């Protein structure tokens, strides 16, 4: 496409008061633009029309708008099929630097040159669209979560394939005697309604159910996952557009709880065993079959315990209240004791607690169970300390129920069996104690495998009602990914982005950095180690671009060349001018908005820093650092999101990888006898904008100590 460049400079919002617009316009005139215009109110109707007219009348197809932040007036400066580059003269220049100062003017001029350089090299992305997108959702697991997900998918007009490893559908719900009330007033135990759900699923023509089956292999990408199912009839192959992983949980191994006498005394059972017993008849002592007239429940049997499960299983308090209630329903003279650490019945479940405890025969106390021993005639003696009764107590019971916790199936099984370069399961689940959870509070369906959505108890300990809610949302996300890839667009967080990475494989050296570092496992490899892209898995973070030492991975509108040219567009003054130049690569999701906020608050900071927004700090290629240093840039700041266990990077590994790579860069700097701290990684949250001036000042001070870049002028 023949580019015809238009540059539009807004003088409103004190840009005109802070800068020498004439000089800036003159500079714009040297940039090869067909049109250079200034306007005092570019985002007003009239201003926006000016650009619109130039596009339609003058054939302008590449627009550089030097005005406010790209985060505002996005709807005003929205011209279809036009390359648009926003130069932020307002928040990042006029509002945050001394007006009519030489340095401020230089900053604006650099930003304008950088914007033009980028715009000249940017191309409009064309979406990658695969043919024959499958609108079937694979659901792994036939418990309440999986059943719900399959049903909801089918209700929305899509097909589902449900794979359950057991012979029966229903999972743990099917083994329950009663379930905790799910609706207001949360007073009475309910009969499990799983039977109705199962028949709805099996009766739905759009749901294909495989029982006694397992997912053997999932290959491909969203929109066209090739799924191999090991069924009793042999291997079945099918195609799915998305995967919902609802493989659920298993009870914690009570054999590890020998301090509570499990395995030692037959009358010590788990809450799961209790449920089965209650479903099948009266509650009795396993030792002699005699009716259990008194039952004790130990909460947190392994949970909240570093030795066993460090987390809380969320539903065991409710479960024991339920079981105590039916112990009493089955036998009006029975007694039920519950020993808890904290009674956890959050939200409206409090109402269930309130109603369950109002029973003569249920005895509750906080306490630590210190020992379980045998009493007279098959009874058990449970000793409890730190009770609310003001003293240690012991009770004699017929049956002791350990309220054991939930362990996700993913703790020792990849479940998905992905035929991916990076392995068969979801990565880094140890961060979540093995649960297939999201790291994001705001985005609970985020997973490191695009198009794969864990749901239900495999994701976090959940009650049945909560699982239903979670699975309904997962069904939406599965449908959403299918509809997105069908039109070649990315899903969250770069929703709607139709750019994708292109690989110039002739120059690939098979170093495998891209295939290893992609946080989403997008790339597979052939035998030689050449990356094999799967664009529908891609989230467009460009971390592969940052990884590639051969610089062969590029997007149409985000490439090594585009940013390198922006770097080169910076005018580096002579050493004698005593004007250091620093480039700040800033994450456009958090750090860039933080700089906007600094501007909005009119916080003033050093004008020698040039900001380059990047998709993710992980997308920064070290060649840009080298380019910068050889261009005489004195220092480089890399401002991105927090990394570590509680990472805030929207692409999970981006800022962490950037840090790792920069360590290498710093080593190189040391070899070149350049101070390694000239390149500095900084973690910044979006609301840390008030700290920006001092962060920059500190860095500039440090840089001052190093003196100018010795390569300046070479």
């Amino acid at each position: 496409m023949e580019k015809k460049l238009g540059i539009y400079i807004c003088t409103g919002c004190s840009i005109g008061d802070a800068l020498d617009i004439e000089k800036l316009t003159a500079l714009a005139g040297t940039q090869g633009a067909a049109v250079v215009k200034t306007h005092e109110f570019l985002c007003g109707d009239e201003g926006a029309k000016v650009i619109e007219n130039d596009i339609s009348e003058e054939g302008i197809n590449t627009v550089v708008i030097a005005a406010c932040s790209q985060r505002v007036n996005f709807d005003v400066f929205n011209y279809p099929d036009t390359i648009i580059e926003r130069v932020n003269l307002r928040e990042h220049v006029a509002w945050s630097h001394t007006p009519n100062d030489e340095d401020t003017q230089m900053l604006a001029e650099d930003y304008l040159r950088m914007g033009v350089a980028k715009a000249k090299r940017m191309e409009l992305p064309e979406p990658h669209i695969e043919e024959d997108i499958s609108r079937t959702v694979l659901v792994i697991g036939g418990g309440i979560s999986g059943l719900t997900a399959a049903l909801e998918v089918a209700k929305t007009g899509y097909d589902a394939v449900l794979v359950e490893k057991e012979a029966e559908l229903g999972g743990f719900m099917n083994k329950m005697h009663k379930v905790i009330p799910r609706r207001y007033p949360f007073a009475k135990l309910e009969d499990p309604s799983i039977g109705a759900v199962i028949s709805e699923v099996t009766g739905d023509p759009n749901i294909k159910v495989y029982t006694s089956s397992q997912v053997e292999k999932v290959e491909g990408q969203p929109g066209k996952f090739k799924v191999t199912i090991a069924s009793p009839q042999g291997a079945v192959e099918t195609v799915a557009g998305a995967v919902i992983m609802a493989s659920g949980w298993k009870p914690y191994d009570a054999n590890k709880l020998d301090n509570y006498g499990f395995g030692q005394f037959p009358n010590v059972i788990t809450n799961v065993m209790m449920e089965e017993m209650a479903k099948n008849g009266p509650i009795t002592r396993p030792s002699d079959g005699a009716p259990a007239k008194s039952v004790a429940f130990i909460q947190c049997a392994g949970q909240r315990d570093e030795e066993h499960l460090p987390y809380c299983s969320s539903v065991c308090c409710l479960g024991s209240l339920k079981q105590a209630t039916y112990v009493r329903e089955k036998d009006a003279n029975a007694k039920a004791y519950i020993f808890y650490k904290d009674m956890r019945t959050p939200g409206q479940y409090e109402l269930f607690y309130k109603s369950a405890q109002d029973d003569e025969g249920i005895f509750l106390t906080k306490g630590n169970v210190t020992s379980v021993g045998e009493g007279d005639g098959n009874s058990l003696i449970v000793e409890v300390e730190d009770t609310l009764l003001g003293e240690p107590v012991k009770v004699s019971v017929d049956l002791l129920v350990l309220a054991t916790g939930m362990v996700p199936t993913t703790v020792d099984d990849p479940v998905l069996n992905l035929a991916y370069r990076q392995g068969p399961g979801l990565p880094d689940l140890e961060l979540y104690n093995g649960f297939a959870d999201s790291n994001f509070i705001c985005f609970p369906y985020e997973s490191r495998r695009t198009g794969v959505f864990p749901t239900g108890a495999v994701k976090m300990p959940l009650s049945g009602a909560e699982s239903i809610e979670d699975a309904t949302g997962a069904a939406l996300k599965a449908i959403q990914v299918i509809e997105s890839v069908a039109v070649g667009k990315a899903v969250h967080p770069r929703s709607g982005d139709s750019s994708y990475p292109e690989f110039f494989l002739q120059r690939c050296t098979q170093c495998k950095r891209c295939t290893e570092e992609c946080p989403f496992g997008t790339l597979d490899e052939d035998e030689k180690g050449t990356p094999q892209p799967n664009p529908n898995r891609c989230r467009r973070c460009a971390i592969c671009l940052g990884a590639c030492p051969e610089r062969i991975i590029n997007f149409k509108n985000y490439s090594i060349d585009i940013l390198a040219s922006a770097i080169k567009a910076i005018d580096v003054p002579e050493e004698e001018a005593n004007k250091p130049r620093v480039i700040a690569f800033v994450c456009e999701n958090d750090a860039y908005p933080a700089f906007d906020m600094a501007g909005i608050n009119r916080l003033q900071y050093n004008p020698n820093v040039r900001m380059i927004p990047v998709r993710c700090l992980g997308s920064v290629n070290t060649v840009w650092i080298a380019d910068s240093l050889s261009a005489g840039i004195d220092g480089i700041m890399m401002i991105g999101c927090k990394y570590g266990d509680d990472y805030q990077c929207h692409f999970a590994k981006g800022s962490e990888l950037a840090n790792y790579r920069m360590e290498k860069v710093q080593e190189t700097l040391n070899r070149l006898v350049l101070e390694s701290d000239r390149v500095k990684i900084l973690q910044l949250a979006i609301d840390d904008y008030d700290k920006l001036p001092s962060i920059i000042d500190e860095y500039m001070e440090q840089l001052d100590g190093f003196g100018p870049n010795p390569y300046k002028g070479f």
Partner: protein
Amino acid sequence: MSEHHIVEPDLRFIKDMKRAGGDSMKKCFQCATCSVVCNLTPDDSPFPRKEMIWAQWGQKDRLLSDPDVWLCHQCNDCSKNCPRGAKPGDVLGAVRNMSFQHFAFPRFMGTWLSRPAYLPLVLGIPFALLWILIGMYGNWTVPEGELKYSNFLSVVAIEGIYITLLFLAVFALGVSINRFWKTMVHYHGEKGLMGAPVPSLLSILPGILAHRRFKECDESKDRYWGHLGIFYGFLGAATTTGIFTVVYYYGLGIHSPYPMSHPVKMLGNVSALSLLVGAFIVTVNRFKGTEKKSGYYDWSLIILVFGLGLTGWATQFIRLADMRSIAYPVYFLHLLFVFYLFAYLPYSKMAHLAYRSVGMVFARQAQRDLVSQEEIA
């Protein structure tokens, strides 16, 4: 760490407690709001939170030996603020009612007075007894001349039977209270106790007479006046009866009726008024809801107070108005109420007079009441 205490919840006791006014107790979730809002609890091991879990767990012995239960004057600040509707005030009231039953001598009497089912029996006995007495020593027909109740039943007969009753009741109460005291000592030990019972009683007496504890209540301040009225009403009535019986009848040989202007007579009338006004306040409060829960024990006492006061007054006015036709039946009723009061003293809510005093004495000696706390501080 002390020894593990074997806990065996007493389901029957829980049921009894619920019947005796504590039916909300299982709702407690041990937040201790009650202990904080209570103006009568000591800081150390405060009540009524701990009593609530003992009640929930059917810890009969703990509760019946707990002097704190008697420090509670059922202001209901706790019940008002309870986030769960567990009404600790009522539950402690139920514990007190259970004490009348549990320590009762003889025990069956305690049971009789605890439930409406026994009411025909409880009222039938005095009715029959009085009827027989009248058959033997009295006369249902009103003779000509001045209306004198001594014509209905001779004073000697009444005095004979009622004074005997009173002595028996006081004896039974003494036995009951002794059991109560021993239980408290058994559970709490004598070691911690400070001073002797009698001086302790003397030291708490001014507080009782001034109803100091009632004044601490926030939620139901009106109860102060209600209880004060009934308390001094009874005190006055007892004094009147005592003076007339001991001093005038036997001492000076002056026989009733007395003129209205007689100071002792005036005291009697004021006492009756005080009783009625007190009972009226208490009743109104109950309907207003400031006294949350009213069980059998409470209503029995209220009806008794109204009955005593009204029939007492009525007999006097009937005599003055010379309403002969209804004079004896009303007097009969009055005697019935007095019988109830005397004979059932150790088992009805009236017994709290003794239990509470003794409980408070124990609390004083165990330094559990606020005054002794202040003294310590």
